[in-house]
């Protein structure tokens, strides 16, 4: 009898895991094999993933579509013969023993992701089998609030949402305020585009987060918890609901938990689409049903947060660390990471990296180690140009700084920030001016409008960058951007405005020549800004179908059916229509030739 697990988190499903599951369902029906599902193990680039578990032997297959599912079922599960060509990872008795992506997992250290991809996230029993709720038991029965806080301080855990504030210290602040009502808030409003570790944890191991919150409640003396989750994550919300219901049934949540006399309730609040709600005071306003606008501090949340009551707010990943720390002790946690940034961190690898997915590693490992050692380098073997960290508040770290250790001390030195751990990788085809424009477009749109510099200043910066990418930039523009950027940082109330200019400032710091190419030579070296490139048809790819010529609004494309078409660069107006209609990916853009001067 084998157990078959299909990876069913959002990434798996968008790669077709639902079909795979249905196919297997039909096959398993009537046999003594068991079919179930699990969360994301982090190998998103190989989704859909299917694991065959026979006793201690785990075999994970990658890219399992309907056809391959059938083949695997018939040959491996029924026939007993493995299919080595499709195996991405294999383990026997806990030791890795093969598969094409063995290194991807082996080079990681997993605390937060300890259960992701191993258990059925909708099964409390699965979680309990992996020592689930043991930390809660320990915290409620054997520890008093001070012990819990002391253990966290000992571990050195720092908030994983971006700022890196020591978690134990934060809890002790809130514990220090007397109040009949206090709140534990979990920020699951993962707003940084390009970061998806919180989604994966919620979809793959929701109980770990609940446990972290319960323990926090005990430590600070709070009886209520709110999880504020993005509406864009319907599956995460669903799995949280299931987890809360199950945990309540089992008596881990509710009144007199495990007979300890401690009461704790958790409610989910669904976000309604506002990036600024990642900022904690704005998030509180949103929980209260108001417009999600940041509030002036002090008073700090530890004194006056949700509904004016003392509140502790951490993000998903931070809470997911807590049960492990309570079970294994703060000292054990310190074995990972660096002196000032202890523990592990989950990174989301995306963009032009060859192996997009999740990687959890000790803090302090280098960018190169993460992107090349685990991430497999750049897609299609292209040139590594930069990695963006910290989302719209962060910055781009250029390729020559790839030896930088990734931790709270070293990343800020490059002009980026740790952020929540999203790493968006860029290659030589990514235009840095366009990236700067992109981030500003984002923050400009998300600015809540309270502070003038953030509301209008970012708009002026955006307009300037738009002009530059259209080829209408002027030499003074870069000075103006730098100056205005500094002013916005000074004159904004919350983190959103204070950091909004960062992506622009950091790209100007490292890629001034690219800005100047746009401004002076009216050319986009990366071949990305549509107005500043030449469109070319690649001979080898063109099938001569003629669709582009038909679609071209200015008749700049000509040719004979079944032969390579050509674009008349002089007549082309760079509308990009042909790019969207070519079925063979045969149209290609390069930076406009710069006339020799």
């Amino acid at each position: 009898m084998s157990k078959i697990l299909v990876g069913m988190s959002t990434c798996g499903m968008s790669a077709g895991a639902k079909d795979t599951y249905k196919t297997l369902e039909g096959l398993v029906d009537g046999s003594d094999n068991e079919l179930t599902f699990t969360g994301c193990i982090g190998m998103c680039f190989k989704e859909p993933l299917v694991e065959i578990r026979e006793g201690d032997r785990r075999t994970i297959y990658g890219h399992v579509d309907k056809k391959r599912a059938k083949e695997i079922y018939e040959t491996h599960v029924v026939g007993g013969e493995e299919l080595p060509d499709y195996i991405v990872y294999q383990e026997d008795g806990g030791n890795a023993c093969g598969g094409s992506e063995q290194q991807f997992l082996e080079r990681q250290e997993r605390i937060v992701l300890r259960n992701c991809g191993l258990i059925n996230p909708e099964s409390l029993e699965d979680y309990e089998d992996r020592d689930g709720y043991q930390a809660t038991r320990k915290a409620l029965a054997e520890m008093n609030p001070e012990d819990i806080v002391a253990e966290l301080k000992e571990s050195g855990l720092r908030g994983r949402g971006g700022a890196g504030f020591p978690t134990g210290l934060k809890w002790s602040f809130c514990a220090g305020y007397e109040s009949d009502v206090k709140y534990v808030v979990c920020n699951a409003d993962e707003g940084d585009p390009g970061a998806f570790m919180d989604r994966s944890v919620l979809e793959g191991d929701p109980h770990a987060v609940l446990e972290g919150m319960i323990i926090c409640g005990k430590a600070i003396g709070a009886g209520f918890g709110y999880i504020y989750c993005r509406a864009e994550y319907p599956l995460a919300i669903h799995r949280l609901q299931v987890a809360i219901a199950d945990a309540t049934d089992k008596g881990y949540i509710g009144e007199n938990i495990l007979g300890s006399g401690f009461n704790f309730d958790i409610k989910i609040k669904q976000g309604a689409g506002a990036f600024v709600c990642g900022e904690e005071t704005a998030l509180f306003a949103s929980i209260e049903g108001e417009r999600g606008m940041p509030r002036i501090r002090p008073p700090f949340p530890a004194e006056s947060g949700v509904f004016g009551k003392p509140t502790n707010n951490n993000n998903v990943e931070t809470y997911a660390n807590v049960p492990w720390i309570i079970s294994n002790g703060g000292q054990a946690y310190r074995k990972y990471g660096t002196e000032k940034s202890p523990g592990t961190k989950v990174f989301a690898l995306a963009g032009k990296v060859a192996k997009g997915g999740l990687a959890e590693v000790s803090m302090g490992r280098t960018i190169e180690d993460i992107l090349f050692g685990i991430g497999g380098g750049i897609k299609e073997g292209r040139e590594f140009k930069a990695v963006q960290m910290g989302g719209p508040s962060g910055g781009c770290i250029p390729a020559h700084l790839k030896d930088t250790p990734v931790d709270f001390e070293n990343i800020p030195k490059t002009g980026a920030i740790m952020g929540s751990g999203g790493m968006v990788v860029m290659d030589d085809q990514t235009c840095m001016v366009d990236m700067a424009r992109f981030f500003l477009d984002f923050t400009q749109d998300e600015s809540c409008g309270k502070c003038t510099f953030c509301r209008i200043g970012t708009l002026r910066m955006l307009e300037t960058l738009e002009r530059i990418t259209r080829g209408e930039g002027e030499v003074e523009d870069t000075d103006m951007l730098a100056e205005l950027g500094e002013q916005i940082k000074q004159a904004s109330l919350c983190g959103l405005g204070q950091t909004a200019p960062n992506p622009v400032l950091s790209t100007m710091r490292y890629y001034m020549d690219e800005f100047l190419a746009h401004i002076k030579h009216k050319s986009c070296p990366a071949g990305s800004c549509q107005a500043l490139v030449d469109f070319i048809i690649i001979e080898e790819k063109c099938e001569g179908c003629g669709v582009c010529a038909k679609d071209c609004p200015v008749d700049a494309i000509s040719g004979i059916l079944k032969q390579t078409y050509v674009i008349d660069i002089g007549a082309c107006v760079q509308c990009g229509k042909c790019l969207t209609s070519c079925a063979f990916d045969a149209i290609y853009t390069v930076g406009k030739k710069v006339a020799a001067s």
Partner: protein
Amino acid sequence: MDGFMNQTEAEFSYRLWRHDGAQGELIPLLQSAQDHFGYIPRRAIKYISGVAKVPESKIYGVITFYSQFRLQPMGKHAIRMCTGTACHVANAGMLLETIEDELGVEVNGTTEDGTFTLFSVACIGCCSLAPVMMVDDDTHGSLTPVTTRRIVRKVRRKALAGEKKAAAEKPEGDAAASPAKE
């Protein structure tokens, strides 16, 4: 159609009735109104205002602050193209143009036949499979212009087939005329 509206209104008022007056319930109420009507109609605002004892002006302020809420009815199917960082780097802009071209509407627009409304969103949390779009609740990854068009056409064909069937069953029915209904 009347029957449908009455029914959801009844269900919706059930939720309102259950609304326990707890602080901070305004956003969930608006969310359930939108779930039922596909948008937030004028009369729902009035209704909520009466029950939750929040002035209409304030409700309106909350609605317009959050991008999730709509005051206009929406097409039968929502296409959400991700234009987050990872997708942007993977050419999501070009795909958005492809969808706009395929549907003949711009972002936030609804097609004439009421089948699709197009949105652009920042990150669906599926960045490793960029570029990504969501059609209703289904996520599709690793898109190219060709696959994108194919997916959109498939949904459209299905919608058309469903409509024809509905029309055949109920000759005087005008399914296309009420885009708000699911």
